């Protein structure tokens, strides 16, 4: 079975295919353009940090007293005797409103998510999901307006307090604002739990509710945590609704009926009245830096947790 195979030269074989054609150049150019688009997001995020730091720079290095900034409740930038830049009261304002919002939103969001994911089906589920989506679309200034024009008189009437713009008002509004996105993420987290977990539990005789309570919820807890974190992030960052519904009193609240001022609202309320480059102006930018960093980490954490869920 001897085979003689000779190496014949590639006579007459076409090697012409390896030319660089117009299409080759166009492809390379397209790749470059798309890459620029891709890095744009990174450039913008860095840009945001750079520009707000630049404007707040002076304050950070001149008037910044770490202890005062973070631990003093006296935010008096326009004081005639001595200006103080303590944000403690503002942080308390943001925290109290966000806290109340979470207290309101979490049970309802998780409850609704469980209902939509586990009990509703077909048409009902479609309608509910669409309603949640539309809820999420309402602009924050409209929510603020609702806080002002509807909740305000309502609170005064029901609770017999003199002022209806307070932690309660903003807390409820913020809760309603954060709820849709939390419901949606929580629902995704529940849906991501594999059916076989449910089937195994049901095969052992558990009722629907027991399956959910003992199997699905624990399995979905990462995603649910992610949903809560996202809600908190939303609460921290919300500006207009909080500006319009919290009243204008800078103090640490002792009851839900106290008026407060949030970090975001402070910037929005005061920036227009500062001179560019003044200490007050720079201090507001510094609050902005603070907000940027906090929401950066909240979003980072939420994304890490949620992504772990969505990958299954």
């Amino acid at each position, binding site marked *: 079975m001897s*085979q003689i195979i000779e190496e014949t030269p590639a006579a007459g*074989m076409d090697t012409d*295919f*390896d*030319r660089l054609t117009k299409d080759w150049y166009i492809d390379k150019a397209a790749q470059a353009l798309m890459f620029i688009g891709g890095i744009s997001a990174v450039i913008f995020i860095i840009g945001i940090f750079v520009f707000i730091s630049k404007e707040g720079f002076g304050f950070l290095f001149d008037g910044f007293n770490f202890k005062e900034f973070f631990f003093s409740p006296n935010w008096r930038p326009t004081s005639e005797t001595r200006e103080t830049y303590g944000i403690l009261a503002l942080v308390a304002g943001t925290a109290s409103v966000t806290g109340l919002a979470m207290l309101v939103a979490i049970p309802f969001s998780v409850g609704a998510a469980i209902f939509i994911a586990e009990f509703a089906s077909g048409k009902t589920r479609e309608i509910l999901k669409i309603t949640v989506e539309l809820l999420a679309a309402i602009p924050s200034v409209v929510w603020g307006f609702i806080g002002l024009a509807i909740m305000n008189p309502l609170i005064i009437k029901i609770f017999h307090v003199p002022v209806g713009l307070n932690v309660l008002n903003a807390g409820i509004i913020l809760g309603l604002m954060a709820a849709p996105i939390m419901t949606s993420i929580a629902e995704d987290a529940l849906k991501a739990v594999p059916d076989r977990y449910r089937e195994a539990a049901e095969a052992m005789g558990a009722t629907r509710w027991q399956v959910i309570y003992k199997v699905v919820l624990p399995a979905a807890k990462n995603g649910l945590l992610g949903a809560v974190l996202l809600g908190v992030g939303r609460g921290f960052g919300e500006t207009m609704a909080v500006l319009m519904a919290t009243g204008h009193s800078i103090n640490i609240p002792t009851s839900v009926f106290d008026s407060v001022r949030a970090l975001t609202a402070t910037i929005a309320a005061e920036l227009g009245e500062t001179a560019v480059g003044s200490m007050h102006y720079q201090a507001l930018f510094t609050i902005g830096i603070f907000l940027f960093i906090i929401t950066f980490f909240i979003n980072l954490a939420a994304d890490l947790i949620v992504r772990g869920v969505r990958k299954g």
Partner: protein
Amino acid sequence: MVEVKQSGKTDAVLGNIKLDVKNLGIRYGQTVALRDTSFQVREHEIFGIIGPANAGKTSFLKAVNRMDMFDTGMHVEGTIKFNGVDTSKVRNVYGLRKRIGVVFPLPVGLPLSVYDNVALAPRLSGEKNRAELDVIVERCLRRAALWDEVKDRLTSLGSMLSGGQQQRLTIARALSQQPELLMLDEFSIAVDPVTTMRIEDVLKELKKEVTIILVTNLVQQARRLADRTAFFLNGQCVEVGITEDLFTGEVKDSRTRDYVDGRFG
């Protein structure tokens, strides 16, 4: 061209070397798909590749048309020379791929009209003349044994055809490239036996214009069509020989005979 006489039984006429494979190794991450493989495919022959699943056959095809470029997990060592040109050193990979048509087992009808499916490759090469395209489309669809079924609905969506029709459409697309090398990977899986026969006849005719590599798990198909056949097993090319020899027991390696006789695989 070299004429080879073969112990009085079969002759094999070997043309220029179309594909020169030397020490080819392919791995995906840590998994080795093919190791240290060398052989040659000659012009105008039907070169069969047989062997059980996961023997490295499909990986080989992917390495030939440089699909490893878009698959970041795939690592290729050794060389493959196409028309004498080292494929790993090619600058314009797209030019290389245009000369090589490949049909994989999974039928893919692009979401374009049937006509546009088959006209795509010529259009990408610059053909704009409608009359010319009409000729190419009809010729390729006829050769793929699909023309009669679609000639009245060339505008219907290729992605909505039946599985068997989509597979033939895939073959038609490969033919529309007017390739020098046509590689078919188990094309008959998605196609019924009668149509398979028709396509086999077409391949025998096409041999005059095109070099064909036929990967198949139907050993009889290799026997019918292939001039020479390679037997792949566990990531290695066990042997390459004149097809008829492999089937009449004149093998270099006993595993080849075992496989051909159906003792495993």
